[in-house]
């Protein structure tokens, strides 16, 4: 791992007696945009806080740019963090919020002014210098928070759920903004999210976490197409995940035969990988909703509910009617047990 810019080695983080993150190893390259993805309680926020220095690890080391910072206090670590709540200082204007860290460094006034204005310009907030946080929208506040971190020229910028507090339109805007800022500054960014769509859209690599461990690490297209475990597959939108016994897929409800004996112990199908309208199996339509380019069926089958997308060209099957379907091996994703 010679090209690692941020290196977590054997990192253990605990709260009292409960271990949130046991023995984590992770290397992040310079200029990379990494997503720590997982459900709440998976240790992603804990990991981020320890990189920032807000949480002392109980074991292991954190190296940034070749320097062991495990024992370096948060205010000397040179890391930026954009909080989920933005954490702006309510008594200060946008300008003073952004200038806050620069003033602490006792830089000349002219430089503070220039860098602050540049920072506000980077996030598109020129002209908002005199506004107080309470006089700005959530999106604008987040931009101030981003600028406040960026002007410090941090080695690593951490972002806690950067898009979750924004509405759909702002979310798209901020996503583009973050990618642009990252490209322009070349800064190494780590962001925490529970939303796989956010991670897929934004990250260079995704670290999928579960119970404080890395479940899978890869590029978005890697994770999307080739999840390794049932947990990863579920997170990546594989709605139909079944255990294999011999040449059958099995659930607690029942079993269905496959065309051949698969190699993997677990098989998963996305809704669009299920064949609808033809095939050896039969089920009853439990729900059907129109989704523009396709129809989303929930088929009540021998395995229980199966989610399947049907091309819009196929005639609609009414609720309660019988529908034919297939779980082809060719479209299945084999998973490790």
């Amino acid at each position, binding site marked *: 791992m010679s090209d690692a810019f941020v290196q977590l080695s054997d990192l253990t983080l605990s709260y009292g007696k409960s271990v949130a993150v046991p023995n984590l190893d992770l290397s992040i390259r310079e200029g990379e945009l990494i997503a720590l993805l997982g459900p709440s309680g998976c240790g992603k926020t804990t990991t981020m806080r320890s990189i*920032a*220095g*807000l949480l002392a690890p109980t074991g292991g080391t954190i190296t940034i740019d070749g320097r062991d910072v495990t024992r370096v206090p*948060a*205010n*000397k*670590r040179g*890391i*930026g*963090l954009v*909080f989920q*709540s933005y*954490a*702006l*200082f*309510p*008594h200060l204007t946008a300008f003073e919020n952004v200038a*806050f*860290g620069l003033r*602490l*460094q006792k830089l000349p006034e002219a430089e503070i002014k220039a860098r602050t204005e540049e920072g506000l310009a980077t996030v598109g907030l020129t002209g908002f210098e005199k506004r107080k946080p309470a006089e700005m929208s959530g999106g604008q506040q987040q931009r101030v*928070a981003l600028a*406040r*971190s960026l002007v*410090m020229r941090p080695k690593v910028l951490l972002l806690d759920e950067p898009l979750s507090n924004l509405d759909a339109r702002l979310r798209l805007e901020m996503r583009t903004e973050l990618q642009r800022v990252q490209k322009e500054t070349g800064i190494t960014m780590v962001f925490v999210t529970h939303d796989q769509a956010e991670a897929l859209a934004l990250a260079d690599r995704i670290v999928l976490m579960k119970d404080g461990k890395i479940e899978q690490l890869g590029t978005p297209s890697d994770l999307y197409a080739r999840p390794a475990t049932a947990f990863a597959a579920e997170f990546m939108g594989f709605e139909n995940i079944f255990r294999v016994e011999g040449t059958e897929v099995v659930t607690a409800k029942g079993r269905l035969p496959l065309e051949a004996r698969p190699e993997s112990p677990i098989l998963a199908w996305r809704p669009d990988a299920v064949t609808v309208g033809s095939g050896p199996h039969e089920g009853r339509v439990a729900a059907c909703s129109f989704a523009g380019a396709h129809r989303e069926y929930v088929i009540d089958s021998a395995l229980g509910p199966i989610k399947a997308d049907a091309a819009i060209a196929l005639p609609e099957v009414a609720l309660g009617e019988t529908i034919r379907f297939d779980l082809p091996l060719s479209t299945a994703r084999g998973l490790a047990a």
Partner: protein
Amino acid sequence: MRHLATWSILGLTLTFLIGPFLIIILAGASATDYLAFPPEGLTLKWYLKVFTVESFRASFALSMALAIFGTFMALLLGVPAAYALNRYDLPGAETLRTIVAAPIIVPGIIVGLALLRYMVVPTGVTVTLALFMAHTALVLPYAVRVVSSSMTNLRADMEEAAVLLGCSRLQAFTKVVLPNIRGGVLAAFILGFVTSFNQVPVSLFLSGPGVRTLPIDMLAYMEITFDPSVAALSALLAFMSLAIVFTAERLLGFSRYV
């Protein structure tokens, strides 16, 4: 009918709130040599006499000093206490809050007697020091309460943000926490000042020869002299409190914090 009831309640409330105040203002202006109401003739001489009574000047100075320094000391202790109670998940935090509130809940007479019997007599502290400590303790509950309530909206991640921008924990407190609770601290100061200044029962026990707070001095004065100057002084003090609270309300919306 409903209206009538509402208005009479309002009328009675105002009468009992403002009535006594009007009575002392007028009684202090009576031209008689004794306290009289309704006043017989009107004069300002008692209002002026107040300023010439030597003991009033001394006790006013003492009361002022106690109110200012006692409240200041209470804030010095109370602000960090409020911060700790808000910020950390302390074991027994609720018990601590109750203990801190005790001086308001326990009757002043008991606090006074207890302080006299178990603090002043055994240790032999000077009267001034005893008064100072007692007033600090009496104001402390207000300081903790009022400052606490102004801190509840202050999120911990604001301080973490300050630390990540280069602050030490202490700097994060002075640069981020303090400016944002300034209103609460000022409100606590005013409330503490007024409470301390008007305090009677505790001071009654702790006052000593030649060292009296103004309210106690007024009581003593009345035992000997029964002229309207005490009413005049009361009216002046009421105006002072009113002016302080009014200014505070105008400047920082005092009532938000109390």
